[in-house]
Protein backbone atom coordinates (compact mmCIF):
# COMPACT_ATOMS: atom_id res chain seq x y z
CA UNK A 1 0.00 0.00 0.00
CA UNK A 2 1.49 3.36 -0.99
CA UNK A 3 1.18 6.49 1.11
CA UNK A 4 -1.77 7.94 -0.85
CA UNK A 5 -3.72 4.70 -0.48
CA UNK A 6 -2.73 4.60 3.17
CA UNK A 7 -4.07 8.11 3.70
CA UNK A 8 -7.34 7.28 1.99
CA UNK A 9 -7.73 4.13 4.03
CA UNK A 10 -7.08 6.12 7.22
CA UNK A 11 -9.67 8.68 6.13
CA UNK A 12 -12.19 5.93 5.38
CA UNK A 13 -11.62 4.51 8.84
CA UNK A 14 -12.03 7.83 10.58
CA UNK A 15 -15.20 8.56 8.62
CA UNK A 16 -16.67 5.33 9.98
CA UNK A 17 -16.43 6.74 13.49
CA UNK A 18 -18.79 9.63 12.60
CA UNK A 19 -16.55 11.97 14.50
CA UNK A 20 -17.62 15.57 13.76
CA UNK A 21 -14.04 16.73 14.22
CA UNK A 22 -13.04 14.65 11.22
CA UNK A 23 -15.75 16.36 9.16
CA UNK A 24 -14.68 19.75 10.46
CA UNK A 25 -11.16 19.09 9.28
CA UNK A 26 -12.48 18.04 5.86
CA UNK A 27 -14.66 21.15 5.64
CA UNK A 28 -11.56 23.28 6.20
CA UNK A 29 -9.75 21.38 3.51
CA UNK A 30 -12.43 21.24 0.81
CA UNK A 31 -14.72 24.21 1.52
CA UNK A 32 -13.53 26.36 -1.31
CA UNK A 33 -13.55 23.73 -4.03
CA UNK A 34 -16.89 22.27 -3.02
CA UNK A 35 -18.55 25.64 -2.81
CA UNK A 36 -17.17 26.75 -6.17
CA UNK A 37 -18.46 23.56 -7.77
CA UNK A 38 -21.89 24.04 -6.19
CA UNK A 39 -22.04 27.64 -7.42
CA UNK A 40 -21.45 26.44 -10.95
CA UNK A 41 -23.89 23.61 -10.55
CA UNK A 42 -26.75 25.59 -9.08
CA UNK A 43 -26.16 29.05 -10.46
CA UNK A 44 -27.51 30.35 -7.19
CA UNK A 45 -25.64 31.27 -4.03
CA UNK A 46 -28.47 30.49 -1.64
CA UNK A 47 -29.01 27.05 -3.11
CA UNK A 48 -25.28 26.42 -3.20
CA UNK A 49 -25.11 27.27 0.51
CA UNK A 50 -27.96 24.88 1.33
CA UNK A 51 -26.35 22.12 -0.66
CA UNK A 52 -23.00 22.83 0.94
CA UNK A 53 -24.48 22.17 4.38
CA UNK A 54 -26.46 19.16 3.23
CA UNK A 55 -23.40 17.66 1.60
CA UNK A 56 -21.36 17.74 4.80
CA UNK A 57 -24.20 16.30 6.83
CA UNK A 58 -24.49 13.55 4.24
CA UNK A 59 -20.74 12.93 4.51
CA UNK A 60 -21.19 12.48 8.25
CA UNK A 61 -24.16 10.14 7.82
CA UNK A 62 -22.79 8.10 4.92
CA UNK A 63 -19.10 8.33 5.70
CA UNK A 64 -18.96 4.59 6.35
CA UNK A 65 -19.69 4.05 2.65
CA UNK A 66 -16.46 5.68 1.56
CA UNK A 67 -14.12 2.75 1.03
CA UNK A 68 -10.92 4.68 0.43
CA UNK A 69 -10.41 3.14 -3.00
CA UNK A 70 -11.36 6.26 -4.92
CA UNK A 71 -10.20 9.81 -4.25
CA UNK A 72 -12.13 11.52 -1.49
CA UNK A 73 -12.80 14.67 -3.52
CA UNK A 74 -14.47 12.65 -6.31
CA UNK A 75 -16.67 10.95 -3.70
CA UNK A 76 -17.49 14.28 -2.08
CA UNK A 77 -18.42 15.91 -5.37
CA UNK A 78 -20.56 12.93 -6.31
CA UNK A 79 -22.53 13.34 -3.08
CA UNK A 80 -23.01 17.04 -3.79
CA UNK A 81 -24.06 16.32 -7.35
CA UNK A 82 -26.57 13.66 -6.31
CA UNK A 83 -28.11 16.01 -3.76
CA UNK A 84 -28.40 18.65 -6.46
CA UNK A 85 -30.07 16.21 -8.86
CA UNK A 86 -32.49 15.14 -6.11
CA UNK A 87 -33.40 18.80 -5.71
CA UNK A 88 -33.94 19.23 -9.41
CA UNK A 89 -36.23 16.22 -9.38
CA UNK A 90 -38.25 17.57 -6.50
CA UNK A 91 -38.56 21.00 -8.15
CA UNK A 92 -40.13 19.64 -11.31
CA UNK A 93 -41.97 22.87 -11.97
CA UNK A 94 -38.79 24.88 -12.28
CA UNK A 95 -36.30 22.70 -14.02
CA UNK A 96 -36.72 19.27 -15.50
CA UNK A 97 -33.92 16.80 -15.09
CA UNK A 98 -33.63 16.46 -18.87
CA UNK A 99 -32.24 19.95 -18.94
CA UNK A 100 -29.33 18.72 -16.91
CA UNK A 101 -28.47 16.19 -19.59
CA UNK A 102 -27.07 16.60 -23.05
CA UNK A 103 -30.33 17.24 -24.87
CA UNK A 104 -29.57 20.86 -25.65
CA UNK A 105 -27.07 22.05 -28.19
CA UNK A 106 -24.82 25.06 -28.18
CA UNK A 107 -27.06 26.77 -30.65
CA UNK A 108 -30.12 26.49 -28.49
CA UNK A 109 -31.73 29.84 -27.73
CA UNK A 110 -30.44 30.89 -24.34
CA UNK A 111 -27.26 28.90 -24.69
CA UNK A 112 -28.64 25.98 -22.78
CA UNK A 113 -29.07 27.38 -19.30
CA UNK A 114 -32.16 25.80 -17.77
CA UNK A 115 -35.24 27.97 -17.73
CA UNK A 116 -35.54 30.25 -14.72
CA UNK A 117 -32.09 29.30 -13.48
CA UNK A 118 -30.01 32.44 -13.12
CA UNK A 119 -26.43 32.29 -14.23
CA UNK A 120 -23.88 31.65 -11.45
CA UNK A 121 -22.55 35.04 -12.24
CA UNK A 122 -25.81 36.89 -11.85
CA UNK A 123 -26.04 35.78 -8.28
CA UNK A 124 -22.48 35.49 -7.12
CA UNK A 125 -21.31 38.47 -8.95
CA UNK A 126 -21.03 40.94 -6.12
CA UNK A 127 -17.47 41.57 -7.08
CA UNK A 128 -16.13 38.16 -6.24
CA UNK A 129 -16.40 35.69 -9.10
CA UNK A 130 -14.94 37.16 -12.14
CA UNK A 131 -12.79 38.83 -14.57
CA UNK A 132 -13.89 38.60 -18.11
CA UNK A 133 -15.89 35.52 -17.44
CA UNK A 134 -18.93 37.42 -16.22
CA UNK A 135 -21.92 36.75 -18.39
CA UNK A 136 -20.03 34.25 -20.51
CA UNK A 137 -20.39 31.03 -18.58
CA UNK A 138 -24.15 31.35 -18.53
CA UNK A 139 -24.17 30.95 -22.28
CA UNK A 140 -22.91 27.43 -21.77
CA UNK A 141 -25.16 24.41 -21.63
CA UNK A 142 -25.30 23.04 -18.11
CA UNK A 143 -23.37 19.81 -18.76
CA UNK A 144 -20.57 21.65 -20.53
CA UNK A 145 -20.31 24.16 -17.73
CA UNK A 146 -19.97 21.36 -15.20
CA UNK A 147 -17.43 19.46 -17.30
CA UNK A 148 -15.31 22.58 -17.77
CA UNK A 149 -15.30 23.34 -14.07
CA UNK A 150 -14.37 19.80 -13.12
CA UNK A 151 -11.60 19.65 -15.69
CA UNK A 152 -10.04 23.10 -15.54
CA UNK A 153 -10.77 24.26 -12.03
CA UNK A 154 -10.86 21.04 -10.07
CA UNK A 155 -8.24 19.41 -12.30
CA UNK A 156 -10.05 16.06 -12.30
CA UNK A 157 -8.96 13.60 -14.95
CA UNK A 158 -11.36 12.73 -17.78
CA UNK A 159 -11.89 9.30 -16.19
CA UNK A 160 -12.79 10.84 -12.84
CA UNK A 161 -15.20 13.28 -14.46
CA UNK A 162 -16.81 10.45 -16.40
CA UNK A 163 -17.30 8.49 -13.19
CA UNK A 164 -18.66 11.50 -11.36
CA UNK A 165 -21.07 12.48 -14.11
CA UNK A 166 -21.93 8.83 -14.82
CA UNK A 167 -21.28 9.19 -18.56
CA UNK A 168 -18.70 7.74 -20.97
CA UNK A 169 -15.37 9.54 -21.40
CA UNK A 170 -16.32 10.38 -24.99
CA UNK A 171 -19.31 12.33 -23.68
CA UNK A 172 -17.12 14.22 -21.22
CA UNK A 173 -14.77 15.11 -24.05
CA UNK A 174 -17.57 16.35 -26.26
CA UNK A 175 -19.00 18.43 -23.39
CA UNK A 176 -15.61 20.00 -22.80
CA UNK A 177 -15.10 20.56 -26.51
CA UNK A 178 -18.49 22.20 -26.86
CA UNK A 179 -17.92 24.28 -23.74
CA UNK A 180 -14.55 25.60 -24.82
CA UNK A 181 -15.83 26.36 -28.30
CA UNK A 182 -18.68 28.46 -26.91
CA UNK A 183 -16.51 30.11 -24.30
CA UNK A 184 -13.87 30.99 -26.87
CA UNK A 185 -16.47 32.53 -29.17
CA UNK A 186 -18.04 34.43 -26.31
CA UNK A 187 -14.67 35.82 -25.30
CA UNK A 188 -13.97 36.86 -28.86
CA UNK A 189 -17.39 38.51 -29.12
CA UNK A 190 -16.87 40.39 -25.89
CA UNK A 191 -13.51 41.59 -27.16
CA UNK A 192 -15.12 43.02 -30.27
CA UNK A 193 -17.95 44.69 -28.39
Amino acid at each position, binding site marked *: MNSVEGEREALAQSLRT*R*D*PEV*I*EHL*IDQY*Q*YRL*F*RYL*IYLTGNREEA*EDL*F*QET*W*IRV*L*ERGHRYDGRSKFDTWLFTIARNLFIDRLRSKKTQVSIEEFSDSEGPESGNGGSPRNVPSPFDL*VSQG*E*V*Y*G*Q*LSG*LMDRLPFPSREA*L*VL*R*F*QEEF*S*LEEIARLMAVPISTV*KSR*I*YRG*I*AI*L*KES*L*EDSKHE
Partner: protein
Amino acid sequence: MSEDLHRRAEQLKIDSMAGGISAPDLQWLGAHLEGCPPCAQRARAIERAVRTLRSVTVRVDPALLRTTRMKVYVRAEDLNRRGARRLLLWTSCATSWVWMAACALFLWHGFERLASQMGIPNWLWQAGFGLWWALPLLIVGIVLSMQQPAVNNERDLTAGLD
Protein backbone atom coordinates in the same frame (compact mmCIF):
# COMPACT_ATOMS: atom_id res chain seq x y z
CA MET B 1 -5.64 23.88 -47.18
CA SER B 2 -8.68 21.71 -46.52
CA GLU B 3 -11.24 22.90 -43.95
CA ASP B 4 -10.96 19.49 -42.24
CA LEU B 5 -7.32 20.17 -41.37
CA HIS B 6 -8.20 23.43 -39.59
CA ARG B 7 -11.02 21.69 -37.73
CA ARG B 8 -8.64 18.91 -36.75
CA ALA B 9 -6.18 21.48 -35.46
CA GLU B 10 -8.85 23.09 -33.30
CA GLN B 11 -10.04 19.73 -31.99
CA LEU B 12 -6.48 18.68 -31.14
CA LYS B 13 -5.79 21.99 -29.42
CA ILE B 14 -8.83 21.50 -27.16
CA ASP B 15 -7.96 17.85 -26.59
CA SER B 16 -4.43 18.80 -25.67
CA MET B 17 -5.76 21.16 -23.01
CA ALA B 18 -8.48 18.80 -21.77
CA GLY B 19 -6.66 15.53 -21.51
CA GLY B 20 -3.45 15.47 -23.49
CA ILE B 21 -2.77 14.12 -26.95
CA SER B 22 -0.24 11.69 -28.40
CA ALA B 23 3.27 12.85 -29.36
CA PRO B 24 2.67 12.51 -33.14
CA ASP B 25 -0.59 14.53 -32.83
CA LEU B 26 1.23 17.16 -30.83
CA GLN B 27 3.92 17.34 -33.47
CA TRP B 28 1.33 17.63 -36.24
CA LEU B 29 -0.49 20.36 -34.33
CA GLY B 30 2.72 22.34 -33.76
CA ALA B 31 3.61 22.15 -37.43
CA HIS B 32 0.10 23.16 -38.49
CA LEU B 33 -0.08 26.12 -36.13
CA GLU B 34 3.27 27.34 -37.36
CA GLY B 35 2.11 27.45 -40.92
CA CYS B 36 -1.48 28.59 -40.33
CA PRO B 37 -1.95 32.00 -38.67
CA PRO B 38 -5.80 31.74 -38.35
CA CYS B 39 -5.48 28.42 -36.48
CA ALA B 40 -2.67 29.82 -34.35
CA GLN B 41 -4.95 32.68 -33.41
CA ARG B 42 -7.77 30.25 -32.60
CA ALA B 43 -5.37 28.23 -30.47
CA ARG B 44 -4.43 31.34 -28.52
CA ALA B 45 -8.12 32.10 -28.03
CA ILE B 46 -8.64 28.58 -26.65
CA GLU B 47 -5.74 29.03 -24.27
CA ARG B 48 -7.17 32.36 -23.16
CA ALA B 49 -10.60 30.82 -22.59
CA VAL B 50 -9.11 28.14 -20.35
CA ARG B 51 -6.93 30.66 -18.52
CA THR B 52 -9.96 32.86 -17.88
CA LEU B 53 -11.90 29.87 -16.63
CA ARG B 54 -9.11 29.03 -14.21
CA SER B 55 -8.98 32.57 -12.91
CA VAL B 56 -12.47 32.50 -11.39
CA THR B 57 -12.59 32.76 -7.62
CA VAL B 58 -15.49 32.34 -5.24
CA ARG B 59 -15.69 33.53 -1.67
CA VAL B 60 -17.02 31.21 1.03
CA ASP B 61 -18.94 33.10 3.67
CA PRO B 62 -17.46 32.43 7.16
CA ALA B 63 -21.03 32.38 8.53
CA LEU B 64 -21.81 29.49 6.20
CA LEU B 65 -18.85 27.58 7.57
CA ARG B 66 -19.90 28.22 11.17
CA THR B 67 -23.47 27.10 10.49
CA THR B 68 -22.29 24.02 8.64
CA ARG B 69 -19.97 22.98 11.46
CA MET B 70 -22.69 23.51 14.01
CA LYS B 71 -25.18 21.46 12.02
CA VAL B 72 -22.64 18.68 11.64
CA TYR B 73 -22.08 18.61 15.42
CA VAL B 74 -25.81 18.61 16.15
CA ARG B 75 -26.40 15.81 13.66
CA ALA B 76 -23.46 13.77 15.00
CA GLU B 77 -24.81 14.04 18.51
CA ASP B 78 -28.24 13.02 17.29
CA LEU B 79 -26.83 10.01 15.45
CA ASN B 80 -24.84 8.94 18.50
CA ARG B 81 -27.87 9.21 20.76
CA ARG B 82 -30.01 7.32 18.30
CA GLY B 83 -27.34 4.65 17.86
CA ALA B 84 -26.99 4.15 21.62
CA ARG B 85 -30.76 3.86 22.04
CA ARG B 86 -31.00 1.35 19.22
CA LEU B 87 -28.17 -0.71 20.68
CA LEU B 88 -29.91 -0.79 24.03
CA LEU B 89 -33.17 -1.90 22.45
CA TRP B 90 -31.62 -4.69 20.43
CA THR B 91 -29.60 -5.86 23.43
CA SER B 92 -32.77 -6.15 25.52
CA CYS B 93 -34.51 -7.86 22.62
CA ALA B 94 -31.69 -10.41 22.33
CA THR B 95 -31.62 -10.93 26.09
CA SER B 96 -35.35 -11.65 26.07
CA TRP B 97 -34.94 -14.24 23.33
CA VAL B 98 -32.10 -15.97 25.15
CA TRP B 99 -34.13 -16.04 28.33
CA MET B 100 -37.21 -17.31 26.44
CA ALA B 101 -35.18 -19.99 24.68
CA ALA B 102 -33.83 -21.14 28.03
CA CYS B 103 -37.35 -21.40 29.43
CA ALA B 104 -39.00 -22.68 26.23
CA LEU B 105 -39.91 -26.10 27.63
CA PHE B 106 -41.28 -24.65 30.83
CA LEU B 107 -43.26 -22.06 28.85
CA TRP B 108 -44.69 -24.70 26.51
CA HIS B 109 -46.00 -26.71 29.46
CA GLY B 110 -47.26 -23.53 31.12
CA PHE B 111 -49.23 -22.57 28.01
CA GLU B 112 -50.57 -26.13 27.71
CA ARG B 113 -51.76 -26.32 31.34
CA LEU B 114 -53.32 -22.84 31.25
CA ALA B 115 -55.11 -23.64 27.97
CA SER B 116 -56.53 -26.91 29.27
CA GLN B 117 -57.78 -25.19 32.45
CA MET B 118 -59.47 -22.44 30.38
CA GLY B 119 -60.73 -24.80 27.66
CA ILE B 120 -58.73 -23.13 24.87
CA PRO B 121 -58.28 -25.27 21.71
CA ASN B 122 -54.79 -26.61 20.97
CA TRP B 123 -54.25 -24.63 17.74
CA LEU B 124 -55.00 -21.38 19.55
CA TRP B 125 -52.60 -21.73 22.44
CA GLN B 126 -49.91 -23.10 20.16
CA ALA B 127 -50.31 -20.03 17.90
CA GLY B 128 -50.14 -17.90 21.03
CA PHE B 129 -46.90 -19.61 22.01
CA GLY B 130 -45.47 -18.74 18.57
CA LEU B 131 -46.56 -15.12 18.83
CA TRP B 132 -44.97 -14.89 22.27
CA TRP B 133 -41.58 -15.06 20.55
CA ALA B 134 -42.39 -12.10 18.35
CA LEU B 135 -43.23 -9.95 21.36
CA PRO B 136 -39.72 -8.44 21.94
CA LEU B 137 -39.43 -7.66 18.22
CA LEU B 138 -42.85 -6.03 18.30
CA ILE B 139 -41.83 -3.82 21.22
CA VAL B 140 -38.60 -2.80 19.47
CA GLY B 141 -40.59 -1.99 16.34
CA ILE B 142 -43.04 0.19 18.24
CA VAL B 143 -40.28 2.07 20.08
CA LEU B 144 -38.29 2.66 16.88
CA SER B 145 -41.33 3.90 14.97
CA MET B 146 -42.08 6.28 17.83
CA GLN B 147 -38.61 7.77 17.30
CA GLN B 148 -39.35 8.82 13.70
CA PRO B 149 -41.18 12.08 14.41
CA ALA B 150 -38.23 13.12 16.55
CA VAL B 151 -36.07 13.21 13.40
CA ASN B 152 -38.29 15.84 11.82
CA ASN B 153 -38.38 17.86 15.00
CA GLU B 154 -34.61 17.94 15.14
CA ARG B 155 -34.43 18.96 11.46
CA ASP B 156 -36.64 21.94 12.32
CA LEU B 157 -34.37 22.77 15.18
CA THR B 158 -31.22 22.82 13.07
CA ALA B 159 -33.04 24.87 10.42
CA GLY B 160 -33.17 27.65 12.97
CA LEU B 161 -29.40 27.76 13.22
CA ASP B 162 -29.11 30.00 10.17
